């Protein structure tokens, strides 16, 4: 039991990720405690904003995984976010009598993930590479936006959920139904996680901590090592007997599932979704969050997504300067710190250290 525990700890604290010192974990624990007590100290409106910010972190983590760790840049992650939002919304609206939203959650996760599986099969088995994957994804997401924008007519409905054209699903579309909040439970004991509620915020914080730790373990696992190798030289990895296409497909689906989680949280947070979620800004912003923090680190991605989304909201109050500022930030960081701000200052593992025996990797840097 203890043995098992220590190997999990070693996996989470492996060297493919920054933040491995005692000091880091003390800070991380403090941040977790801070997140838990936060609702006592802020207004309901501020909490609503923080819930939105956290919901976007999963989208960024998905991009960090496929781009930073596996070397696949996608400019269309919002396709999975939007698809998840619509799938969750459509199923949720149709099954609103059932009380719980389990089926909507499953649809919201499965539809984008299966779509990603089909798409990545086509791309990776046809040897589409590099910038072409990025562009194909952007085209895919814009196609969704264009298609959904023209679904205003009454003929565009799935069950009782009318797709609503550019008004989307929700109270603005004139339809009676809006996507439900996440509702879990059994029989009459139901918990509704409405977007304004503290429960929704805690659900997100719990998911964030769990997924962050799982992803750390993943990137330090054997699978993560193969990803790092593929990022550097996929052809060479193949020459050792690995089917790189299949590995890329799996990691691409994982990235899509994380984007889908953001999509579900987003639509159940605001109880609406419009085709604009598929748009250019939603696809480029995650790239900025991940690149500015440091694409090769989950920790950097979480921090920079939270900080930059928070900053965007501040700037948004002054007018539409936020995107200009974000774009300028990306350009400056890429010129001065191409590996990202947090990873360059946070001390990526250095290699000048003396040889250590394998396993004695618990040095704090």
């Amino acid at each position, binding site marked *: 039991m203890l043995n098992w525990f220590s190997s999990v700890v070693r996996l989470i604290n492996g*060297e493919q990720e920054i933040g491995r010192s005692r000091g880091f974990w003390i800070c991380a624990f403090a941040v977790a405690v801070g997140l838990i007590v936060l609702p006592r100290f802020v207004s309901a409106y501020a909490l609503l904003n923080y819930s939105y910010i956290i919901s976007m972190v999963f989208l960024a983590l998905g991009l960090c995984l496929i781009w930073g760790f596996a070397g696949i840049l996608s400019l269309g992650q919002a396709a999975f976010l939007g698809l998840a939002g619509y799938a969750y919304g459509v199923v949720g609206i149709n099954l609103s009598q059932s009380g719980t939203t389990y089926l909507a959650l499953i649809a919201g996760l499965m539809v984008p993930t299966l779509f990603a599986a089909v798409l990545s099969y086509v791309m990776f088995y046809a040897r589409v590479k590099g910038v072409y994957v990025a562009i194909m994804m952007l085209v895919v997401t814009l196609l969704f936006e264009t298609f959904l924008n023209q679904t205003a007519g009454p003929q565009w409905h799935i069950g009782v959920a009318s797709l609503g054209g550019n008004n989307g699903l929700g109270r603005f579309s004139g339809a009676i139904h809006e996507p439900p909040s996440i509702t879990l439970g059994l029989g009459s004991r139901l918990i509704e996680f409405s977007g304004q509620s503290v429960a929704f915020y805690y659900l997100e914080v719990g998911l964030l901590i769990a997924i962050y730790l799982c992803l750390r373990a993943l990137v330090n696992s*054997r699978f993560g*090592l*193969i990803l*790092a*190798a593929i*990022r*550097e*030289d996929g*052809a*060479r*990895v*193949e*020459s*050792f*007997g*690995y*089917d*790189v296409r299949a590995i890329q497909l799996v990691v691409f689906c994982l990235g899509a599932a994380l984007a889908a989680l953001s999509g579900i949280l987003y639509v159940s947070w605001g109880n609406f979704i419009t085709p604009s979620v598929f748009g250019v800004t939603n696809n480029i912003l995650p790239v900025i969050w991940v690149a500015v923090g440091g694409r090769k680190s989950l920790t950097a991605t979480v921090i920079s997504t939270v900080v930059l989304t928070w900053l965007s909201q501040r700037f948004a109050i002054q007018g539409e300067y936020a995107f200009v500022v974000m774009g300028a930030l990306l350009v400056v960081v890429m010129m001065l710190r191409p590996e990202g701000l947090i990873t360059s200052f946070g001390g990526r593992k250095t*290699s*000048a*250290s003396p*040889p*250590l*025996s*394998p*396993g004695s*990797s618990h040095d704090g840097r």
Partner: protein
Amino acid sequence: MMGGDREAILQITSLRKSFGGVRAVDGVDLVLGCGELCCIIGPNGAGKSTLFQLLSGQILPTTGKIVFDGKDVTFAHPFERARSGIAVKVQSLGIFQDLTVDHNLRIPLMRRLSPREMPKAIDDLLRQVGLQGLNSVNARELSHGQKQWLALGMALAMRPKLLLLDEPTAGMSSEETRLTTEIIRASNAQGSAVVVIEHDMAFVRELRAPVIVLHLGRIFFRGTFSEVEENEEVRHLYLGTRNRFKSSDLPTR
């Protein structure tokens, strides 16, 4: 000479590869027995590297057939060839510079070993290629020769039936070349058949293996190294007494 009494591990039959109008490999026939060692040499543009890539599966032939270990692998994917027992060491190093030496070796080893067996296997391999104690050094920090040995170690980690080496001593000093020769001989003694594609004649001499001379995509001559050296035509062709082959004396790339 080759593939005579032993069971053949590799059979190449009238292999051709054209790039546009150029026939880079133009009808090569070759049989290699289990555990045999052979060197393929030739001047620049002889088709050595194309032949290597046809064998490793990075490119596919126009016509012809490659049978490895009784299986037709002519159009097999590189990872399928690797799984059936072909290990390659490409010319461009082919190590993962972002990873430590230890992690580099884990990548080929993970396919056949459990995590428990890993540390010992890694140490054994490092000793075999003369990199002992460098487990947690970043591959980027190694010297050029050490990088080449690491790449060789990664190929050996697969316990291949056939080891394909493209210019394994490129850029090495003569002392490093000698050590590389020993590593290759040792792995050959352990049962791997080895095909070395080479430009450096000193190294070929040291390896004392049967030699195939490739010229304009065809097998021009086969024999021992001394036979190759004594053959007037090969000397003219390869050693550059004809002006148009002069550049071939220089190391490629």
